[in-house]
């Protein structure tokens, strides 16, 4: 078991567009996750490759059923029993996690990576005192004594902004508000100084003002301790606020990746474009929101070729047959890539949008 001795870099801000590259801290390559279901095998994650550098926040965006949560759970090794990784590599700090046994993974979960969930109420053990839940990680992984772990828990509670931690230590999760519960979750995730925190829609269940607080907290923690984030969400503006890079998922595959500003303001995949156009925005009011027609693809019998082609306005014959892996875009920044064969058309559409109808 290695301690968190890796040099941690803080990000000065988004302007520093990713820290100096020293090889990715987490590298997922060609990950496949399949779920056995009654009506067939669901290919929930189908060839996903990701990289996260130290101190970087990566947004993983997609609608429900796009496989973004499954990807996260596969990385952490907490897939539901009927799901399994069929192929691919998940390399964290030079170690491939896929072949590791559950007990080997237990030495990595906590000290190296941890997770924050969407519903803090159901993600916290209802019959265990909050303080003990935070202290459990240090007890197990750092060999802390009961009192030392409790001290650590108190310190963490202070760090994530839980007022009156001495009193709150002995409280149960149901005595907390939603925002406070999420702070507890974050404290648990931080408890063993991990290198990367996987966040599964951590603010979706929260109100806007609380979401704002939690996002700020996460941003501050990342900057202070240099911890990396993978932030799964369906909310594009949230990604825009927190992450430096973004990866868009559709039907179990990545369709577009790149710098957050480039992807969200100048999408090069019709699905990303559709997401951007269909979300009502406080700043811009359109005459009519543009919806993405159709419904998400079946993951049992996915469409041939590009999985988005049945819903795509730009689709051509070749989209129906030709496989569409992610391809780097000429002239884009690091890892700016799209899976669209006709991405130039998005460019035109974006340009047209700017001019106005």
């Amino acid at each position: 078991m290695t301690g968190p001795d890796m040099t941690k870099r803080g990000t000065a801000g988004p302007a520093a567009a990713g820290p100096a590259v020293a090889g990715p801290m987490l590298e997922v390559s060609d990950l496949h996750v399949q779920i056995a279901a009654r009506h067939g095998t669901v290919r929930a994650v189908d060839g996903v490759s990701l990289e996260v550098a130290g101190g970087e926040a990566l947004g993983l965006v997609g609608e429900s059923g796009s496989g973004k949560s499954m990807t996260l759970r596969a990385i952490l090794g907490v897939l539901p029993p009927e799901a399994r990784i069929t192929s691919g590599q998940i390399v964290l700090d030079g170690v491939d996690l896929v072949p590791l046994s559950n007990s080997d993974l237990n030495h990595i979960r906590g000290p190296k990576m941890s997770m924050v969930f969407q519903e803090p109420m159901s993600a916290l053990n209802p019959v265990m005192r909050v303080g003990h839940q935070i202290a459990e990680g240090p007890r197990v992984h750092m060999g802390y004594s009961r009192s030392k772990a409790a001290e650590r828990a108190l310190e963490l509670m202070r760090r994530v902004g839980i007022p009156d931690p001495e009193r709150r230590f002995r409280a149960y999760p149901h005595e907390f508000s939603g925002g406070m519960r999420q702070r507890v979750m974050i404290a648990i995730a931080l408890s063993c100084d991990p290198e990367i925190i996987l966040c599964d829609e951590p603010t979706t269940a929260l109100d806007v003002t609380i979401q704002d607080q939690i996002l700020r907290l996460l941003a501050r923690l990342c900057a202070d301790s240099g911890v990396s984030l993978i932030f799964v969400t369906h909310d594009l503006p949230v990604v825009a606020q927190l992450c430096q890079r973004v990866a868009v998922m559709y039907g179990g595959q990545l369709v577009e990746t790149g710098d957050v500003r480039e992807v969200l303001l100048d999408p090069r995949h019709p699905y990303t474009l559709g997401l951007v156009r269909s979300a009502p925005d406080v700043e811009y009011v359109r005459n009519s929101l543009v919806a993405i027609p159709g419904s998400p693809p079946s993951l049992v019998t996915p469409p041939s070729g590009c999985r988005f082609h049945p819903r795509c306005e730009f689709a051509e014959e070749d989209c129906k047959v030709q496989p569409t892996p992610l391809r780097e875009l000429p002239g884009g920044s690091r890892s700016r890539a799209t899976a669209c064969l006709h991405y130039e058309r998005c460019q035109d559409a974006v340009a047209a949008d700017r001019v106005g109808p």
Partner: protein
Amino acid sequence: MTAAAGQPGGPGTGAALDGAAGVTGTAPLLSAAGVAVSFAVGSALAARVRQQQRLLRAVDGVDLALARGEALALVGESGSGKSTLALALAGLRSVDQGEIRFDGRVLPTRRSRADQRRIQMVFQDPYSSLNPRLTVGGMLRELLRVHHIVPSGEVEAYSTELLTLVGLGPDALPAYPRQFSGGQRQRVAIARALALRPDILVADEPVSALDVSVQATILNLLRDLRGELGLTLLLISHNLAVVRHLCDRVAVMYLGRIVEVAPTEQLFSNPRHPYTKGLLAAIPRLADSASSQITAADSGPAVAGDMPSALRIPAGCRFRTRCPIAQEICETADPALTQDIGAPAHQAACHFAFTAAPSAAALAAPAAAAPPAVAPGVPRQQQRKD
């Protein structure tokens, strides 16, 4: 008009009603005056032991008016009482205090079937709002028969017409809810509400349970229906972006009270209540992520802390526990909704809403003031077509 110290927890003054109605210059179609709704929580003894109210005052003295044909948004965070207020207005929750008027007539606590028909609701979760054991045709038929909307021979044709109106075909009639996707279910729910030819449609978070790409279709549908049927719409939402897309006027709720009401553009460009300002600042923005991205050096959150429990409503101004400009007066005097002298349609319940606040500079400038940069979309000025 300065803030009169109201009774904490008591209903607000009816004076504010005139302003709201004044927007259109006619008598409001639906109005609430001093409406309060509470729930009994736990035992009286437990409440005494823990020194709190036994009644959870979900809605605590609300004055609100809805003019015929307008679209009013009720905005607030969870726990603000907006859904409870919606249920009370729709006659699905009895009111403890105050009165609800429809077309100038006070609606009784137990509404008649005819009154019930006039205000119809669309609920948040289309998975729970449709009876899984009834076909779409069956649920429409039942309503149409009970209310004698059309002669029994025309039920089928009318149902088909309704479904077409919401973008579904006649083949939806024999289908069960489970055969539809989320967006389609919401269309069925809208058809069901419209079946009774209501005067007012109350939509409680109609898109928040749907995927982003589907949300747009439902919002567009609501907007088109408004234009087509001249519907009066009360939209309940926590999402200010949705509201801005759809509504003429916005009422912001906090802890059971309305703290600010204004025409949409006025509210977004010139919010007066510190809570509204915080709420607007807290919304993550897609546009120009560089300017809105959180950095380590950033200032504190838009609104600090949690909303207090409705069991322990603070004395004086209920927002003061989280307010960046709270003064001594805020602890003692409960501010009533007051009008902006320049723009009477704009009301806010803050002691410093329309005066120079003592430490207004401490407040972050409203984020909406930032000029929008390039983004796929249409500039705001082109937004209103009517």
